[in-house]
């Protein structure tokens, strides 16, 4: 009788253990999902740098969701392109597996990724490609007070990063813009066409 009970218990216990193990495995192996409507476009990894080039050319204001996929804090340092003599500080620290949101209103921004050692006060340059996951919302709508290039929020979970962006009064996927884009595609502006022809 006791033997049977022990056997049943061991079977149930091993099943439970297996379930927990597989669930934890699943969690680690699970692919990170981008927020709905956020697409991996509008940026490129070039050697060690990451370069943001917003895909929305006509209405130059966009939002990037950036996730640190490494297990160390990453410092994003804005790199001067050489033309500008001054240092502009739109740097940000992203903690491991956290999301940060960058609002961009420029044609091109370049970043260097580093691991910062507090004790030695030293940066170690790393390849951004190995550390970041990035996506862009191509059809955003900003209130006039919130335009510009700045960090909207730093180190949040995916959901709270979305909420924080909305809190700034930003529509992440503006239906009007989508419609406008489709409309532009179907009925291109004749003036624009003329200019294109001249260019050719």
């Amino acid at each position, binding site marked *: 009788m006791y033997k*049977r009970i022990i*056997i049943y218990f061991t079977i149930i216990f091993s099943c439970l253990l297996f379930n927990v193990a597989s669930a934890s495995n699943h969690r680690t192996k699970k692919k990170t999902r981008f927020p709905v409507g956020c697409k991996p476009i509008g940026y490129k990894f*070039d*050697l*060690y*740098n990451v370069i943001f080039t917003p895909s929305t050319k006509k209405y130059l204001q966009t939002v990037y969701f950036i996730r640190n996929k490494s297990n160390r804090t990453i410092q994003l*340092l*804005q*790199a*001067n*392109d*050489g033309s*500008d*003599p*001054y*240092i502009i500080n739109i740097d940000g620290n992203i903690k491991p597996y956290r999301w940060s949101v960058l609002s961009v209103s420029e044609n091109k921004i*370049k970043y*260097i990724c*580093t691991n910062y050692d507090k004790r030695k006060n*030293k*940066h*170690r*340059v*790393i*390849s951004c490609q190995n550390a970041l996951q990035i996506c862009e919302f191509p059809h955003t709508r900003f209130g006039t007070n919130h335009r510009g290039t700045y960090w909207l929020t730093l180190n949040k979970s995916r959901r709270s990063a979305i909420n924080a962006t909305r809190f700034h009064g930003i529509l992440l996927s503006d239906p009007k813009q989508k419609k406008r884009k489709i409309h532009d595609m179907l009925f291109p502006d004749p003036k624009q066409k003329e200019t294109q022809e001249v260019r050719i």
Partner: protein
Amino acid sequence: MKRLLILLIIFWISCTALANEHKAFQHYYQGEYSKAQPMLSKLAENNNPKALYFLAKMNLFGYGMMKNTKNGFEYMERAAKLKNLNAQMYLGAYYLHHEKNIKEALVWLKKAANQGNPNAQMFTALCYLNGFGVTKNLDVAKRYIIKSAQNDIPMAQFLLAKMFLKNRHPRDKKMGRIWMLKAAKNHYADAALAYGVMLYTGNNIRTNRTKGTMWIERSIQLGNKNAKAVLTNIQSLGNIGANNNLDKKSALSLQQDAKPQETMIALLKKAGIDITNPKRILAEGDAQTKMPTLQSLSKNTIIEPDFSLVSPNDLPIHYILAHVSNLTYQKQSQKLHVNTYTYVIPKHVKTHQEAFQMLSRQAMYGHTQALFKLALLYENGDGVEKNKEKAFSMFMKAAELNHLKSEYMVGVYYLKGWVVNKNNRIAMQWLRKAALHGNANAQLLLGNIYEYGLHDNDPTQTVKKDLTRARAMYSLAAQNHIPEAQYQLAQMYASGLFNPTNNHKIQNKNLKIAYQLYLNAAKAGMEKAKIYLAYFYAARNESEIKHTYAYNIANKFSAIRNHDAELLLAILYDRGLGVQKNHRAALTIYRSLAKDDNVFANFMLGTYYYLHDKNNQRAKDYLVKAAEQGIAYAQYNLAIIAKNNHQLDSEFLLLLNKAIKRDFNKAHLLLADYYLINQSDSLAMKKAVHIYQRLSKKQDPRAELKLGYMYQKGIYFSKDTKKAFYWYQQSANHGNKIAQYQLGEMYLLGQGVKRNIKLALNYYKKSAEQQFEPAMIAIGYIKSVVQFDYENAKKWYLQSQKSQASITNVNSQALSLDTFLRRL
């Protein structure tokens, strides 16, 4: 609890047993009937239907035994009664065509129809519809028509459509239209005509005359005799006449006088159904029929250790590039690129003095840009007396106010010890600051510093060599379009510095990056980069234009005695890329390079001398030199020479091991193959397995093939056909012809996988595409023995003969096929 365990064990055993076909069947599929017969008899005693069917065939056709028709039929009937579909179909076809007895044929074919054979279903439906061999029964006929229509038989679909269209309910009419269209699309002429008339007349469907005419025309193309008349009638008389005509002529009309057997054969022909037993090559009388056998590949063919020399033209160009760039990288002077800035006078200012006065005014208000420019004027003594101290203090002021170029300049001053005391630590701090803010010059300089290190007597002032950091800094500078950084980084990537484990994947990835960097550097006007870019263009898979481009570059730079360019030129002459092949010219260049002790020239000359004369001492000397200079291929060739000159195996192994130490995959593989073919002791086999496993991680198809073979034959591992199948599949996917053949065989025999003739043929064809003769023979075997397609079988056999004339089996098989085809 015990019962549960027993059930589980039984389930597991049955699962594993299902994966493999029975050995008796495998022998039968392979054409080894004498081996299969006793095993099949044993199985037949236990009423195994498949074994009974195979025994019946062997008796009937004299496969592996004398013909015995009586026994054959007994076995066949037993198999058919035990629900063997093939046996039922065989008997049905036999009674229909040979005995001309529809009633008996229907008995067997009805059983086959109930097992889901669409041809048998159509036959049964036609029997019940017309009352052949059975009393007419429309309900039963309808049931079989539906089943057959679902199995895509167009005649059944046509009949079903007509049945639906007879009803009045709109839903039935819709179904009728759907089935009619399906039958018409399946190229059934009557259906096309009926559908066309329906569309033209608007009967049960919306009128569409153009489409209707199109369908009727298609019916004419498909060979319907009435369609032409219907088309002319429609166009001249109108709708009603045409409709009546259709009803009369498109029905399955039967001639009253014809015999039911003949009518049935005609109907089956019309339906496009083939219920006949194929014509086979058989011996006359009661004699035994000689059948071809499928021969498995021998151990030597599969393992096939390659004891051939690496020819100079087989040397991969990327390997040469890696070595050459590595040598150049090692030889280059450790120079720090300290770029400084110069002041350019703006257009609205005439002289340096004027500029100095203007900048001084601006600097008083703390304008950093002005401070920096003023510092440059002081540094160079333009418009003001040269004063480096003042220059430094101004750079410092601007740097403290976060001026980027000034940060870099302060770093340079500390590094060089200009004006201030030399202090590497402070210099590094300023340079790092500037580099992280994006200053390209600082990034390049830091890259240099990390690459070579800064040495000083004071340990606090020493900067250690750190290639990872150097790589990072060069990457940042290269992204900022600094050609020196691009070139330096390309050298590091190409020379394999970042790939210490010699991993193929990493190497390919690194070469891609190096190519892009060389290209960018060359575009920026760096002449050195062009030479290495030309090496990329000299790859065999590149276009002719690129080959010519490579030749032009090599020719241009060899004129100024650049050794790397000269080597490339010789290679291009030797391989005939971008220029006409000229072996003599190549040898002349190799000889002149060998005087300067060029590694590759030594290797090329050594190998060529050996290929020309096997006892040439000079050849060995050259190869030994090349091997000492670190060319693994040279070491490998020395080992092969030792083997070919019948030296002791220990000597061969010693030399091969030296090549292995240089992490040379080919040498690894040869060693493992050598161990495997000689079935060496367990320690050696363990080494071989280790090598195969390591190489299989690098997706080497030859290693994957060997692992598959070891699992299949139970060498070192215990026998596991599923694992063997997995490894063969991996190797086949990576393009190995032997693995493709083995996979074909596994599919044909049902080893480790369910039997599938189509996939077997696919894999054999893939292997045959790579001119593998056994695969051609195997295709001939399948075509003749399984598919009875003797014309194609002959073609494949003859094709294999062309490439290998000495296979007697193939010769006799092709000859017997020839006589049979003539008899037909």
